[in-house]
């Protein structure tokens, strides 16, 4: 390929693939990135609170079970 051919190919490419002008994302990408990173602060769900409440009630009703529960924790 001689320099003239090379130049023609470059010109053809410029016409086929013009410079990109859309150079900004259409949305804020941070939330999606956070999801991917999975670094959201851990907010306990209602199920977690229900389990804790259940455990407290169980421990209050059967105090003898507390050492057993602590052993398995």
């Amino acid at each position: 390929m001689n320099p003239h051919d090379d130049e023609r190919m470059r010109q053809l490419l410029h016409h086929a693939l013009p410079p990109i002008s859309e150079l900004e994302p259409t949305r804020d990408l941070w939330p999606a990135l956070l999801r991917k990173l999975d670094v959201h602060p851990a907010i306990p769900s209602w199920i977690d609170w229900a389990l804790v409440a259940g455990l407290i009630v169980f421990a209050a009703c059967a105090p003898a079970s507390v050492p057993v529960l602590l052993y398995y924790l």
Partner: protein
Amino acid sequence: MWDGESNVLDEFRRGNVDAFESLFRLHQRAVYAWIMKIVRNPAAAEDVTIETFWRIHRAHARFQPSRGFEGWARSIATHAALDWLRGHRRESEDFAEQATELAANAISDPAISSEIRRKTAQAFARLPPRLRITATLAVVEERPHKEVAEALGISVAAVKVRVFRALRRLRKDLQQQGITP
């Protein structure tokens, strides 16, 4: 929030998410623009930008603040975009259509028909990804060879060789379709 850029970089290196967010806000536009030049598809560029910053976050402990964030991020973005090109090689038709649409909006030589432009874009999409990415940056976007070499992690001589090979393959492909560039 941060005393200076070096402080942000140090904190980012330690894994501080707030520092990472500051760097993300500061550099996301430049990273997106760089990726967009390679993948030439807005939706894909957004996905690859997210992938890039995810990789950046994973690699935070290996970051060397003395070398600067921009070049490091650009190198990671280039490799993420290269991976995207490797995974989407079969989408040459879509690429050609998008390129033809963009070309229709741009000022173009009337002597070069839209059919030739479309076939050129298709042939370009068929190039091996490592040749395609090099030609995109060095020829289409006219980035300096040194910058392309740093982004790809290769020498300037290797960039020139890849550009030469890419143009030669492109020419052969077009000749096989009856187009003499």
